[in-house]
């Protein structure tokens, strides 16, 4: 192999580039904050005391390591060995807690007093509110008005946890606009506030830092697969909105022969249909019109309703190391029910995208081992599904 897999998914370049993607396209006001954050993360990540503190939180508070579960019924039905990485079993119900515990611990170490965050489905908002409550910081979460509507349960959870939830009424009133509003807040509050970005996106160092905080998913899964099956999986599959759960699990397998599959919603296919663009601080694939106006994504799942994608995904796609197929909302609704009925697990709608792809492509993967990141549980989606399924 000519490309050294060792170098893939390590540190980005000095300017925060993964190949030609990434960078730091922020207003001057935020440049010093990004530089400060980069230095603080670099220093903390190399500090055994910080690492031990975070590991302890991940173990005793989040409940790591998360298990792997083989889906015997569903596997038999599809003709594959289907293995789930159970991030849905973490405290707060998704992988988001890994990143948030890392960032809030870091923010505290940096002497910040307040946390701002954006959220789509509400999982990152809930996780941020949780970590802020735990570590005694105030927390404000921006959430698109459309998402506030369809994720009422998570809105209430955030409030219970002491966070302030601000509905965003600008633009498409979904995740992208929540990011805009969180960035506007941060521009005004940067001296006392840490922006707890919820995915592997944004300006350098976020894409790198958030991926490192989620690396634990892939590291554990690699070890668990080896222990359980004596080999690496043939496929590693995860849903992709911004792409944090996918990079977390990919990081454990990028140097194996496993095919890495990031499943995007058909209505939010940044890699599949986008062109390189710059928004939210990064250069990456982006759904945009002929003049560079960012287009609205449309997905049944609030967490994937995002027209961009983390820059490292753009890089992995550009070098052919990962693939980014799409699935439709209809396929997702099928997959959601399939997992509930055959395995007794209600997946988050986001993760149902990964299963939808697996279930569609299973005839081409007969006898193979497929590891899927079940990045969140579906309780939050039950109300919405009740309406859809009547």
């Amino acid at each position: 192999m000519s490309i050294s897999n060792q170098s893939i998914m390590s540190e980005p370049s000095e300017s925060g580039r993964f190949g030609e993607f990434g960078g730091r396209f922020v207003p001057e006001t935020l440049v010093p904050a990004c530089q400060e954050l980069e230095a603080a993360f670099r220093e903390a990540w190399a500090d055994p005391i910080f690492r031990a503190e975070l590991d302890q939180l991940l173990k005793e508070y989040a409940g790591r390591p998360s298990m792997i579960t083989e889906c015997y019924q569903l596997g038999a039905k599809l003709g594959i060995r289907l293995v789930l990485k159970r991030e849905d079993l973490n405290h707060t119900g998704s992988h988001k807690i890994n990143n948030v515990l890392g960032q809030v611990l870091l923010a505290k170490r940096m002497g910040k007093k307040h946390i701002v965050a954006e959220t789509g489905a509400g999982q990152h908002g809930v996780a941020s509110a949780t970590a802020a409550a735990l570590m005694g910081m105030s927390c404000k979460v921006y959430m698109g008005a459309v998402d506030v509507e369809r994720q009422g349960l998570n809105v209430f959870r955030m409030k219970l946890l002491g966070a302030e939830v601000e509905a965003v009424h600008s633009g498409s009133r979904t995740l992208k606009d929540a990011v805009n509003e969180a960035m506007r807040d941060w521009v005004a509050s940067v001296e006392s506030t840490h922006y707890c970005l919820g995915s592997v996106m944004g300006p350098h160092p976020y894409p790198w830092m958030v991926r490192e905080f989620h690396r634990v998913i892939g590291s554990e899964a690699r070890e668990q697969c080896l222990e359980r099956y004596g080999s690496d999986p043939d496929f590693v599959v995860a849903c992709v909105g911004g792409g944090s759960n996918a990079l977390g699990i990919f990081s454990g397998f990028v140097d194996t022969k496993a095919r890495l599959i990031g499943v995007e919603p058909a209505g939010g296919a940044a890699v599949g249909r986008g062109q390189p663009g710059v928004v939210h601080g990064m250069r990456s694939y982006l759904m945009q019109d002929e003049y560079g106006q960012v287009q609205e994504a449309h997905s049944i799942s609030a967490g994937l309703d995002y027209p961009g994608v983390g820059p490292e995904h753009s890089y992995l796609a550009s070098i052919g190391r990962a693939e980014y197929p799409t699935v439709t909302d209809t396929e997702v609704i099928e997959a959601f029910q399939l997992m509930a009925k055959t395995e007794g697990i209600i997946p988050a709608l986001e993760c149902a995208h990964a299963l939808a792809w697996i279930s569609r492509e299973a005839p081409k993967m007969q006898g193979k081992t497929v590891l899927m990141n079940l990045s969140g549980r579906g309780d939050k989606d039950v109300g919405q599904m009740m309406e859809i399924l009547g």
Partner: protein
Amino acid sequence: MISTSLTPLEVTLRAKRDAGRKLLVPYVTGGLKGWTDAIRAAAANGADVIEIGLPFSDPVMDGPIIQQASQQALDDGATPISILEGVRTLDVDVPLVVMCYYNTVHHAGHERFASQLFQAGIVGAIIPDLPLEESGPWCAAADAVGLATIMLAAPTAPDERLPRVCARARGFVYSVGLLGVTGERTELAATASLLAKRLKKVTDIPVIIGVGVSNSAQAVEACKVADGIVQGASVVRRLMEGGPDAVGAYVAEVRAAIDASTV
């Protein structure tokens, strides 16, 4: 040391500044109803430079008023091309610059965009989400056609950064008046004069305060330190509420106030 190759914009602004005039830079969102007449009105009532916003879907440096104006312009079908076509018909003798987000530039391509601006008679560009470290490719394209890249300097910048920002600035340096996004405030933030002072210490290029300079009294206050002021949300609000004539009247009022204070 003054470079021998000053952009035309900077030559004009330095001359006015050195003659004792404070520089008034109204901002108008391109494509917003009445925008071309608003520019004519601003030019006729004492503007020294006019900043034309190219509306973007995700304006992260803008507060509610300019967000709303941008959205209206986009809903009415404004594009960078249609706005530049409108610019060609303006026939005003005040230098015109654009304010646009970087994806508009990136999507068109640096050289192509610089040449489109130049051909429409635009003499400078302000790109608020393109910081110093990422500005190289755009600046090269802009320099090549003599277009001034107006750099922004922020209150959060450490001392060592300001001379580097000023060294890369052409035309004038945009001194960001506060920690926050565009919009009207009841008072001029203390950071506005502080940053302008810090900039004046390290550069001879005109220093103009923008973001949060909301009325003629604040303009006068800002001009005690700075070489001039940008009037953004206060102009755009008047255009939306009262049309181009209201813009003309407001620009005249600010002009009179800052002129009176420099006598």
